[in-house]
């Protein structure tokens, strides 16, 4: 049994409200030297807000933060930094047009000192990156780095300042499994050197792997704090959700007629993103069609063709057997294709619009939202309210700016917008990316429900477990080529993995071959 005698951090009764939304409600906990405390909770439970208060970026309405026994002045990141607290934000705080070194050294010297000491800084960065295995060039522009590398820069930024307490806000959300392992190795090394860590996540297995203790937040309130050795994944999920979290049961599908068919569709490559290579696909009523594959293998092209944003150069599209000559997003919406876009921030919602406006985005010009060219706000608002209630969107009301919602709640609104129109065809592109278990199960059960009422669901996901759990028919996409249809349970994950790596296709990818001669 490990004992952590030295307390380095204490949060006491932290409360924070955003308008009518209470993000944190009297949260208190402490952190000891060399300890890893995981802050666990669903999206919107208030984890990030709490940490932004700790770090001084938000000012708490109530409560105090003390580091090494001293109370920090509220709303002052400088004080937190000086006390040895560092934070790696979920949305990185890096300037893309500047170099790694410039980003790391920013603010480390008094503003009016004469020189930057660039040589010394450079030496130190290289030394740190070697010691902690955080390979990244100090001269690279941040904008040219991968997401994993950017995170290394953020961690280097903290290490460069000799932080004693490091807050990591969902550090693995953007990483591949390999990068996650590397990150954990780095963190363990830092912990051995006496660093204390607050690890924010909703991925249970990661929490179990790295944390000593777990603090669970639910609806902004602290539910429990338990030691890792006294708990397990199921218990944590239950704490987080407030009830046992069970994935929805999948009944056998009852496929009907073909609603949409792609015949020999090809689209050009765009930059390094492959287009489709003579793809044929059938979307049948009452069926979930899973599209598995490694990111960037033509999923975007597929989604855009189905959604109408991209028109095939060769091949044809048919809806219920009828060929469509001129394909467009508007046609797609009119023909009953509903989209859950891949990027809910960029293409799914308009951040500064309120929930009502976002709810009617795709159908604003149709009845009942528009009459004789005038928007009917009362109907629109009640539609938004309906979605909020039915899909449990947690928000102060339909007039809230959607930007203020957490990812999960935003996705629920999109889901409601899509499903309330009772669409025939649902294009679900990465519908659960970045969501917590509760929201994942919810989205999945809604998709199954749509299937059972006779909709065709095209599920695009990079998560093979999700595809295998949900899809009745599975296609694999690799370099823009589509595998034959496999029925549920026909192929093992390993077999699908081979297809994902490009094996098994009849003809090799022609053009790509030369580029990928690695």
């Amino acid at each position, binding site marked *: 049994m490990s004992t952590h005698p030295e307390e380095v951090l204490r949060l006491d009764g932290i409360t924070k409200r955003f308008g009518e939304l209470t993000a944190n409600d009297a949260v208190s906990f402490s952190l000891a030297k060399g300890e890893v405390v995981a802050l666990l909770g669903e999206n919107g439970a208030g984890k990030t807000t709490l940490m932004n208060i700790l*770090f001084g970026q938000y000012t708490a309405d109530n409560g105090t933060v003390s580091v090494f026994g001293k109370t920090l002045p509220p709303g002052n990141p400088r004080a937190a930094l000086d006390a040895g607290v560092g934070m790696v*934000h979920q949305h990185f*705080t890096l*300037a893309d047009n*500047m170099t790694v070194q410039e*980003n790391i*050294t*920013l603010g480390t010297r*008094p*503003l009016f000192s004469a020189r930057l000491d660039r040589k010394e800084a450079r030496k130190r960065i290289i030394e740190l990156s070697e010691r902690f295995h955080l390979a990244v060039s100090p001269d690279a522009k941040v904008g040219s780095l991968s997401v994993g590398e950017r995170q290394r820069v953020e961690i280097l930024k903290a290490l460069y300042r000799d932080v004693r307490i490091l807050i990591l806000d969902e550090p693995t959300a953007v990483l591949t499994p390999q990068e996650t392992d590397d990150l954990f190795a780095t963190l363990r090394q830092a912990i051995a050197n006496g660093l204390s860590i607050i690890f924010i996540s909703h991925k249970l297995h990661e929490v179990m792997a790295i944390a000593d203790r777990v603090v669970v937040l639910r609806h902004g309130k602290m539910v429990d704090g338990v030691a890792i050795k006294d708990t397990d994944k199921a218990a944590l999920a239950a704490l987080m959700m407030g009830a046992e979290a069970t994935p929805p049961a999948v009944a056998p599908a009852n496929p009907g007629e073909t609603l949409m068919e792609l015949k020999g569709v090809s689209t050009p490559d765009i930059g390094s993103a492959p287009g489709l290579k003579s793809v044929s696909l059938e979307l049948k009523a009452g069926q979930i069609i899973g599209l598995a594959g490694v990111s960037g293998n033509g999923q975007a092209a597929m989604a855009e063709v189905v959604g109408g944003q991209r028109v095939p150069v060769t091949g044809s599209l048919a809806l219920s057997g009828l060929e469509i000559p001129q394909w467009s997003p508007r046609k797609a919406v009119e023909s009953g294709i509903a989209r859950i876009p891949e990027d809910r921030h960029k293409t799914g919602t308009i951040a500064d619009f309120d929930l009502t406006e976002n709810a009617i985005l795709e159908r604003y010009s149709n009845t009942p939202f528009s009459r004789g060219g005038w928007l009917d706000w009362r109907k629109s608002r009640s539609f938004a309210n309906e979605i909020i209630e039915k899909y449990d969107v947690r928000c102060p009301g339909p007039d809230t700016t959607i930007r203020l919602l957490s990812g999960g709640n935003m996705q629920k609104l999109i889901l409601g917008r899509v499903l309330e129109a009772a669409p025939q065809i649902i294009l679900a592109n990465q519908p659960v990316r970045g969501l917590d278990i509760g929201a994942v199960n919810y989205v999945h059960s809604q998709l199954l429900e749509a299937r059972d009422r006779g909709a065709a669901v095209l599920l695009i996901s990079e998560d093979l477990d999700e595809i295998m759990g949900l899809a009745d028919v599975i296609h694999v996409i690799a370099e823009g080529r589509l595998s034959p249809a496999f029925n549920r349970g026909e192929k093992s994950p390993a077999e699908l993995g081979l297809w994902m790596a490009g094996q098994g296709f009849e003809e090799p990818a022609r053009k790509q071959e030369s580029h990928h001669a690695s």
Partner: protein
Amino acid sequence: MDIIEILFTASFWAAAIRIATPLILATMGELICERAGVLNLGIEGIMVVGAFAGWMAVYSGTGLWVGVAVAFAVGMLFGLLHSTLTVPFGLSQHVVGLGVTLLATSATYYAYRLALPEVTSPPKIAAFQPYEIPILSDIPFLGEAVFSQTPFTYFAFLLVLAVAVVLYRTPLGLAVRAVGENPSAVAAQGLSVTAIRMGAVIVGSGFMAMGGAFLTMSAFDSFFFEMVNGRGWICIALVVFGSWRPGKALLGAVLFAAFDALQIRVQQTDIGAEIPYQIFLMMPYILSILALVVMSRRAEVPAALMVPFNKGER
């Protein structure tokens, strides 16, 4: 005289550099503001007020450099107004900028009438005189073109160097650039975005006013209405032309000034007599639009330019 011949005379380049000086000063001011993420459309008005303040100070008996300092201080005052509205209050930078230009211009004309109610033509002052830098001014061609200017011009060139060094070689410059790229990154390091942005706008506005002061204290020796005549707007374009880099912006200013100097001279040639002079007046502007189109395609705009930063907002 042929156009090519004109281009090879030292007096032509001396004129170009003289014409470029106010542009250089004000462009540096605008560049500092924009690097920190604030578009300062108050530039035109601040140049007017700077022109008046410097001249008025010297007219009432101060030394020339004190006059420059007075212009700088008055410019900073308007910078304080602009930055208070745009930074902590986060108001529209376009609206505030144009408002500051209108206010500064009108206030200047009003002050002029108050100070000199009964004159028909504005009084003259003893302006900066050309100073031939020993040794350097003996260099053929370059000596006459570059090293026989007024001290105010030398100051402008040194300012470009200083701005470049501060921006790229000091912690302060790093923070200014970062605040224009991603203010959250600066806030996350415990620095005050508000203070850095306001500071940049205030100092930048000071340099804009100096650009105006050059007109009354070095280029001419008196103050006229409309004398700034759109130079501020040219500086906005020059910042874009220079891709927000001091050295390139300097180049742009000299280039524009050369076009301007050239058109005056071409008007006096045989071909010039055939063509309406308005065409020549347009030339520098047309050429700068063309240059802007070519140059700014790959320009790296500060990512947070014109994006107000509100602490604690999601």
